[in-house]
């Protein structure tokens, strides 16, 4: 058996071409449904509770980022209506929460969170106009499928598995952690959504995030977050953004 790189990409342009299947029809995996955070590692103290003021362990923060972090004032953020600063796309998958993933249309995957009641739209057909709209907490996301194939030695083979790759930009500046560890509006986020199966048969989704910020970070802030698939909406508990908790 020869070795070959088997990951193929459902190119963004392909989704819009005549005759090509929609992103929904071409999906190699089904990510839709309800998911719940599974917080199993020692980053627990940065995720399940509000981190200590000034604690940025693990974040490759530049000195100018330290100054911004030192000025963190949750009361001030709340008064300014900016209590969602720690719920932006670079941080939202780290928040312990439930996700509800649905197809908004055949080319757009929608991810809703109960924590902070955020909505992310993953666009398989990029739009220049939308990408240049005013900045938001969730920014503008472009999505593509990565296919993993299995089949005969010649030809592309049958797609048996895959992952979702999402690239997000056009963000409002916010916090990587609740305690004011900052990211700037020049930040971009690249994420992989990989479904796997847990040993007890439960569905799992691993979200790997690469947060790049030329202003406040020396190097990408790379993390993984685990989600377990739920059979229903049980546990879905919408809550407004909170600057303190």
């Amino acid at each position, binding site marked *: *058996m020869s*070795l*070959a*790189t*088997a*990951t193929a990409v459902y190119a963004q342009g392909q989704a819009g071409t005549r005759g090509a299947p929609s992103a929904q029809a071409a999906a190699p995996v089904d990510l839709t449904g309800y998911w719940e*955070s*599974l*917080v*199993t*590692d*020692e*980053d*627990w*103290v940065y995720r*399940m*509770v509000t981190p*200590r*003021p*000034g*604690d940025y*362990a*693990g*974040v*490759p*923060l530049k000195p100018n980022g330290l100054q911004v972090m030192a000025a963190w004032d949750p009361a001030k953020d709340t008064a300014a209506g900016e209590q969602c600063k720690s719920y932006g796309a670079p941080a939202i998958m780290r928040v*312990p*929460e*439930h996700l509800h993933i649905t197809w908004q249309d055949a080319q757009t995957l929608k991810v809703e969170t109960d924590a902070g009641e955020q909505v992310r739209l993953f666009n398989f057909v990029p739009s220049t106009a939308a990408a240049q709209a005013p900045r938001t907490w969730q920014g503008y996301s472009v999505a593509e499928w990565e296919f*993993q*194939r*299995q*089949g*005969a*030695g*010649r*030809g592309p*083979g049958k*797609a048996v*598995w895959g*992952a979702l*790759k999402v690239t997000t930009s056009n963000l409002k500046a916010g916090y990587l952690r609740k305690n004011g560890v900052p990211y700037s509006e020049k930040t971009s986020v690249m994420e*992989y959504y*990989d479904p*796997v199966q*847990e*040993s*007890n048969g439960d569905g*799992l989704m*691993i979200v*790997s995030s*690469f947060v790049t910020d030329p202003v406040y970070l*020396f190097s*990408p*802030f*790379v*993390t*993984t977050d685990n989600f377990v698939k739920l059979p229903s909406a049980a*546990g879905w508990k919408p809550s407004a953004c909170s600057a303190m*908790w």
Partner: protein
Amino acid sequence: MASNQLRLRVRGMAARGMAFVIALIFTSLALLVEPQVVVAQEVDLSGSWTSPPTNNVLEVYEGPFTDDWTGMPLSAAGRALAQSWSAGALAEPERTCQLYGQWKYMTFPFEIKIWPSNGGPTDQIVAWNLQKAEDEGGMKIWMDGRKPPSKYLDYSRGAFTTGHWKGSTLIAETTHLKMAPARNNGGYYSDRSTLTSTFIPHGDTLIMVFDLNDPVYFTQPYVYSRVWTRATRPASTAWPPCIVNYEGVAEGVVPFYLPGKNPLLNQMMQLFHVPEYASEGGAQTMYPAFRDKLKADYLKLYPTFPKQCTQYCTNFRGQQAAGNIPQPSASPAAKSGRRKPQSKP
């Protein structure tokens, strides 16, 4: 009558023969168009892989606090073991090398080297090998469909692992695990555990997912994931083997704490204001609903935090402030008794 029957028989044979020839032609054409052997499209995982020091930094780089079992699905037995555990146990001759189990491929900071083993008449890949710069016994993922050895075999740190491809994802199943820490503060898994490892390649990025199932010390699987990227330099795997030596604890002596007598169960409260019902772990601490339980207690104490964090607050030992992502040092902090392996005599 007889000649009619003979004609019919000959006609039947001719029809069957024609059908056979047609089937043969189609089969040959199909074979020409596409081989019939269905195989996964494997990915070459070989090389050196490094993990950015940004995920799970406390455990991977600094070592866990003595009472931090947050996010671990410990059973009552697992919790009792963890709370009675003393780091001095690792100085027992029987346990000197216990630290180095297969789980450490996920949680130790060092780079991983992966390479294939070839064999058989066609020199195909029969196994994938993982090795780190410590003596975990290696992880050899057999791809040749071999059966596991007897469960009565003496288990080694290398355990026994088989794998298969699903698309370009490698899924490995490990049995015959020796008892070892899943967290270096007494959070153990037993020798009845099984480990499912998933290796998901995305170009020069490799996502590893470990799923540890232990019917003794866990109430549900312990899932852990981490990102690796191709290293620009070869991984060093040249550490000496773990050798049992005298480390101040005589054979037969077992350092431990009696229930309720462990003086080190308040670090999480002192440093992070995390109450004991959270720091002692358990499956309930892994889910968002647990935040609701914590909220009132935690926020009541939050105003008592100093304005600036004073301990374990920076990125990896502050060295990134210089603009570098350093490789971890060979001797991570030993807050919970993490120790270097013995040098060769």
